[in-house]
């Protein structure tokens, strides 16, 4: 298979991750956000597996497996369950209108292309464009975290940002520790989910611990 075809496929998959990042921005329902995120994780798994294949780097298959099993399956299912349990599956509030959010998203993608392409003139074509795509995904994740106010969508935004980081790391040829980094992120995300769960449960049941709250209320202004 020619190098050109390998690159094209890598960029196609990377662009799919980016497109999923865009569609995360305009989803109005929480379940739709989760499904779109699962799709993005799936695309990321494919990107990592493809990079493993063309770079002859078997450890990236592990990263792909983590993305597939943990992010595309377990996390969305856990969030589905959490959202149902907590009864928060109404429309998602946004801080900015969808139109403006999309415009900002387009501007961010343009920005990352303008920034990355000139400075990577010496890198291989594979790295160059994947890096531009990855940086766009990172910035879109950041934008999502800013424009959404719900804790669940904030976490999804963070995970989308993280997908961009993993995409950058797998595209950087021969970068060590990619597996360790994706494991570290998975632990972080698992803890976050645990955190929301805890946070929301407290909000609903906090009369149970009123005595505990009383003693500390005086400590704050």
């Amino acid at each position, binding site marked *: 298979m020619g190098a050109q075809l390998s690159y094209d496929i890598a960029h196609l998959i990377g662009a799919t991750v980016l497109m999923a990042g865009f569609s995360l921005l305009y989803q109005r329902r929480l379940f739709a956000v989760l499904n779109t995120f699962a799709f993005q994780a799936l695309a990321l798994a494919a990107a990592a597996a493809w990079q493993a294949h063309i770079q002859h780097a078997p450890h990236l298959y592990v990263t792909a497996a983590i993305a597939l099993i943990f992010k595309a399956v377990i996390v969305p299912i856990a969030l589905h369950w959490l959202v149902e349990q907590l009864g928060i599956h109404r429309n998602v509030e946004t801080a900015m209108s969808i139109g403006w959010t999309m415009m900002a998203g387009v501007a961010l993608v343009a920005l990352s292309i303008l920034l990355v392409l000139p400075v*990577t003139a010496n890198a291989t074509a594979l790295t160059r464009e994947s890096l531009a795509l990855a940086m766009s995904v990172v910035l879109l994740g950041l934008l999502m975290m800013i424009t959404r106010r719900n804790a669940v969508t904030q976490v999804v935004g963070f995970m989308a940002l993280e997908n961009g980081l993993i995409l950058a790391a797998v595209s950087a040829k021969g970068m060590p*520790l990619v597996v360790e980094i994706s494991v570290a992120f998975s632990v972080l995300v698992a803890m976050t989910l645990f955190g929301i769960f805890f946070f929301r449960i407290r909000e609903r049941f906090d009369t149970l611990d009123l005595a505990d709250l009383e003693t500390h209320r005086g*400590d704050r202004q």
Partner: protein
Amino acid sequence: MIGGFTLLPGLDNPLLWILGVPLGSAGFLAVLKDWRAATWINVLASAITFASSLLLINVRPEPTRLLFIDDFNVYLVVLTAFVGLTTSVFSAAYIARESEAQRLSDLHLRFYHSMYQAFLFTMLLALCANNTGVMWVAVEAATLTTVLMVSLYRTREAIEAAWKYFILCSVGIGLALFGTTLVYLAAQPVMGDGADAMAWTLMIKQAHRFQPDLLNLAFVFVLVGYGTKVGLAPLHAWLPDAHAEGPTPISAVLSGLLLNVALYALLRFKMVIAANGATLTPGPLLIVMGLSSLFLSAFMLYRRGDIKRLFAYSSIEHMGVITFAFGMGGAVANFAGLLHMTMHSLTKSAIFFAVGIISQNLGTKRIAAIKGLTQSHPVLGWGFVLAVLAIAGLPPMGVFMSEFLVLSSTFARQPLLAIPLAIGLLLAFGALVARLQSMAFGEPPPHAHAHGKAGPLSAALALTPLWVHMLLVLVAGLYLPKELVAWFQHVARFLG
């Protein structure tokens, strides 16, 4: 052996002990049921770690792919291990009273002690890491352990603070990872694939051949990323909450140590950038962020009602001064920055020790409710006065000396920049002294002893770390040993 490097240190290597003891005891403390024993094992483990770190001053193990010790990080390792030890002593007294007051359950305490050691491990690992990726993973793990400890009290405020800390710092270190990847990409064409292109010791020698544009872009991400964790304005929003809501020993190590570790990461990247020559100069960026942190916190100090928040803002202030110093660069300013990092760690953790006892004795963290400490609790009160005067920068304490050096080196090179710096320092000084007056002097409130006093042993345990730190700061202000000066000068030169 890989290309002249062994991967991990051997048994006779102090590094193994420095990292192994905290990690092992974190595991052991997680399963140990008796919390009283746990407090002492915590102290013992920290003492062994500190003793092994002292060995590093004379014995420098060979760098490996993963770990290394050079003149720059060794002093931070020793400082971290030292404050880790004194805080564990303070924590033994603090935790005993929290448990008596039934604010923390036995399960929480087991968790707390295990996390304390895990946190020490992650900080030491970040400092010793020779690999940018390992360093990143360590800083991330440090975030996780501290988030868990900040939320320890399980109040709504604590959980909110932990959530904010978590989200902001996760995004921050996420961006730092992107910066790290970009640095790898800049290094990879020169150094080849794999771990070589992520090792500090190897990168610094080849940095002049890296691609400058890529390094510039990388530095922006690293600055925003690790800068969030340093608490530099405008990325500081998590810091006051996280410092205020967690248990006080954690506030002491967060403020005294973790901020230093994040700044260390930033400085390592700055060294690689500075070694290149064709890149932008990182100095102005650091100066702007340092000054804005200084001003923001100096104004914020005036209107704080919560004593822990007050000193959290003071940490932002001092991190700003340190960042400013390293931004100025040059031998004198770097020297001042290194010294100020040390002095701030010692003084700020001492202040948090005092604040912990004060809030336990008086049962409040509200500044308005704290009065006449020097009368109601003389040993504690005067220790607190000394510590606050030190952090405000009054001579002859060590903090004064380092601040004076920052100011005079700025005046010598960029007189115009010295003006805002001096104004910021004076503003912060005024706020702290004004607050101190109402807290330390005057009539103590009638219920000053209502919350009971600690037993004599417990009180001595809680106060000793405070006075030890203050003694060190005072000595450093009056006399710095020649060896230490020579050492800092050497490090200051290669910091660029």
